[in-house]
Each structure stands twice: as structure tokens, then as C-alpha cells.
């Protein structure tokens, strides 16, 4: 069931909205000094699936591995272009209890990121309390990341990609009923630059569209670039 439920979100998003990428900035904008402001790169979460006949999402390990390499490399390109100073965050030196908190932070970010993504895409889902400036935080437990890495910001990246293997008759029927069409796969992603002192998401970039391919370096680079388009220093 979980496959289908996960699949529904980008699918619905795709059916209903055509825009490709958006960005949100907190009132307190990120202060990135070219080449000097340290950013801790959290473990990137990339998942690639093949949509088999009917829309069952089949996990593809080789694609996922490729995509991870491509996305990492693409982040490297963005890093150079935007003159960011990225360091990897490695939690394994922390005591187990702290590692558990770091794990909870990643889970919290996933939930917060998805909620922010949905509110960003569907104005109807944005409560009146969230109408003003982009205002999301994941709390001050992130200070641990700063202590371990010496970084000013943390970068959380989530990307999910699925590709059609053709013959998805049933799926297309459903989608047609909802008034849309899906030819290729879908691409969904969000990235957050988190202030490691306050936990505030200083910049939030999203990506969601029918085109794109993380299996090849060039389109992967283009996708990551698109997702990061609104991040500037």
C-alpha cells in the first residue's frame, strides 16, 4: 500500500499543477559568504522507481545508485557555481542517544518538508496562519550538527523519480478521469537550507514535474540546478 500512497502525492501534484520549481525564503534570508560559509550536507535521500504497467512503482537499485552519484555530483556543480562550502555530516561519532535524536530530526524534516511542499503548491492547503512570510523551523536540536561540523547551515535534500516502462493503461485511465495526463515519469524533490542555530528553514526549494531523468548526469544536473535556482548568495 505504501508504494501507492507515496506515488499518489507527486501524481496528484502533477495532474493539478504545471509549474516546475519554486523557492521560498524566510524573512531572515540565508547569509552565504561565497566560499566561506560552511554548510553541512545531510545524507541525501534519493529514490528511483520504475513505473510498471499500471503504475506499480518498482524500486530500481542500480538507478538509485546512479542517481545518488549524479545528484551528489550535481550538488558539487551547484556548489561550485554558487560558491558554496559544503561538508558532509557524519553522525556516527555521536553517542547512540544523540544519533537517535539526529534520526528523529531527519524524520521531522521529511514531514515538515512535505507539508511545506504541499502548502507551497496548493494555496487551498495553506492554513491562514501560514499566509505571511515562509516560516518553518525544525528546532534547535540542529545545533548538534553545527557542533559536529562547525557549519552555519544544514542542507537537507529529498528527491524521488519514477519512469514509465510503457503500457500503463490502467494508470492513464485513472489520471484521465482526474483530468490530466502522464506520459513520462514524475520527479519530486525538495531541499532545505536550515539555520543550525535556530532551526529555521532559511531557504526552501522545490522541484516537481513530468520530465527529467536522474539516471543521466546531464539531466540530473539540470534537475538539481532547477531545484536550487532560487538559492542565491
Amino acid at each position, binding site marked *: 500500500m505504501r508504494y501507492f*500512497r507515496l506515488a*499518489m502525492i507527486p501524481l*496528484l501534484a502533477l495532474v*493539478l499543477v504545471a509549474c516546475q520549481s519554486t523557492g521560498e525564503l524566510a524573512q531572515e534570508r540565508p547569509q552565504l559568504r561565497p566560499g566561506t560559509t560552511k554548510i553541512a550536507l545531510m545524507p541525501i535521500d534519493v529514490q528511483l522507481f520504475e513505473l510498471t504497467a499500471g503504475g506499480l512503482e518498482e524500486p530500481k537499485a542500480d538507478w538509485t545508485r546512479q542517481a545518488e552519484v549524479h545528484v551528489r555530483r550535481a550538488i558539487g556543480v551547484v556548489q561550485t557555481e554558487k560558491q558554496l562550502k559544503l561538508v558532509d555530516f557524519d553522525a556516527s561519532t555521536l553517542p547512540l542517544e544523540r544519533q537517535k*535524536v539526529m534520526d*528523529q*530530526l531527519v*524524520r*521531522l524534516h*521529511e*514531514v*515538515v518538508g*512535505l*507539508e511545506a511542499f*504541499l*502548502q507551497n503548491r*496548493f494555496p*487551498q*492547503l495553506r*492554513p*491562514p*496562519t*501560514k499566509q505571511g512570510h515562509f516560516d*518553518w*523551523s*525544525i*528546532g*534547535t*536540536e540542529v545545533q548538534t550538527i553545527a557542533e559536529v561540523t562547525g557549519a552555519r547551515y544544514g542542507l537537507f535534500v529529498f528527491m524521488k523519480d519514477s519512469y514509465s516502462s510503457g503500457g500503463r493503461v490502467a494508470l492513464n485511465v485513472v489520471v484521465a478521469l*482526474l483530468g490530466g495526463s502522464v506520459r513520462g515519469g514524475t520527479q519530486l524533490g525538495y531541499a532545505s537550507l536550515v539555520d543550525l542555530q535556530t*532551526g529555521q528553514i532559511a531557504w526552501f526549494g522545490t522541484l516537481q514535474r513530468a520530465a527529467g531523468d536522474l539516471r543521466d548526469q546531464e539531466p540530473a544536473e539540470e534537475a538539481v540546478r532547477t531545484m536550487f535556482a532560487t538559492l542565491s548568495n
Partner: protein
Amino acid sequence: MKIRNGMATLLLVFVLSACATYSKVDTGQRVPVGEGITVTAVGGWASISHQLISNTGADAIWTVDGPSINHLTFYSAIRSGEPMLVVPNSDVELPVWRTGMTEPDVMEFVEGSLAKANKLPFIETENLRPHTFLGQPGFAFEFNLVNQKQLEIRGLVIGTQAGGVLRMMTYTAPKLHFFAKDEASARAIAATAQLTGS
């Protein structure tokens, strides 16, 4: 908690139809939250549309950051033999409240209702204490649970049982950051709760 399952469909319907999903509740505004109870909002909250919560068992659900993050939920009139929550399309038998229950019984009733309706792997209650609610002697306690995404969630329950009716307010949010953020506001709202006509 409860709202997530049935809500996906309804959210979809609302996205498609562009109906109002929320109404704003301004600070200082006194609003009804179910049968015979009004509260005054403290801090900024949004009330989730009644159509969206109609099959949850709650009379009003408010949120600050969004329905997948935090809620303030009101149960204004649970009567003897009735459950706290509703699980649509399910044969799950939920615990029922009965007149004559002691406060420890009620705490276990809430704990069991949440655990059973949501098939929670883990929930634990703590710090049951006397607490005045709606101007009547009542109770308060906290709970910690782990949801299906294995995220730790914390909750506060404040209620009172009198005149053959159980009335409660629950506040739930992720344990990290979010619970503490709006806890004071939730407690302040509980303190403003009044029975209409009193």
C-alpha cells in the same frame, strides 16, 4: 493523529473543488467548538473545515502549521457507552467511555482509543493530575507516542466529566520543537473554555 487516514481523500476533493479548507481563528475571538462549549483563541490558529473532520469523532480541530504537523482537538460531548474516536470503514472495536469512571480509567480510555484507532506501536501516558476545565473539577495528563512514520509525538489532554458527559481537549505535535512551540497557547485556550449559558 486521527485525521490523517480519512483526510487524504477529502483533501484531494477540496483541492479539486477549491472549497474553503480552513477558517482563521483570531486571537481574542470567542468561538464555539462543538456542543455547548466556546473558547477564546490565544495565538494564531486555523480551524479545519467541518466537512473534513466529520468522520473523526472530534467536534473541532485547529492547527497552526498544517494538519500533518499539529492539532488542537475538541471533544465536546462523549456520552456513556460512546467511543472517543471514529474509524470509518472499519470493524475495529474502540473503547467506550462510561459514567462513573475514575480519572485513571479515563486516562486509560484515551490511551486505548488512540492506540487502537491508529494502530499505534507505542503510547504511554504520564503525570495524571487534577485540573479545572470548564469551571469544573477535571483532569490533565500528557502522553508520548510513536506514529506510523516512527516520529515521536507528544500530547496534552485536559478534560472533565460531569452530568453524564465527558468533555476534552487534546493538543498534539511532534516532540521535537513543535510541542513546546504552541504548548502555552494550547493551555491558555483550555483555560478560556466555557460552557455556554454559564
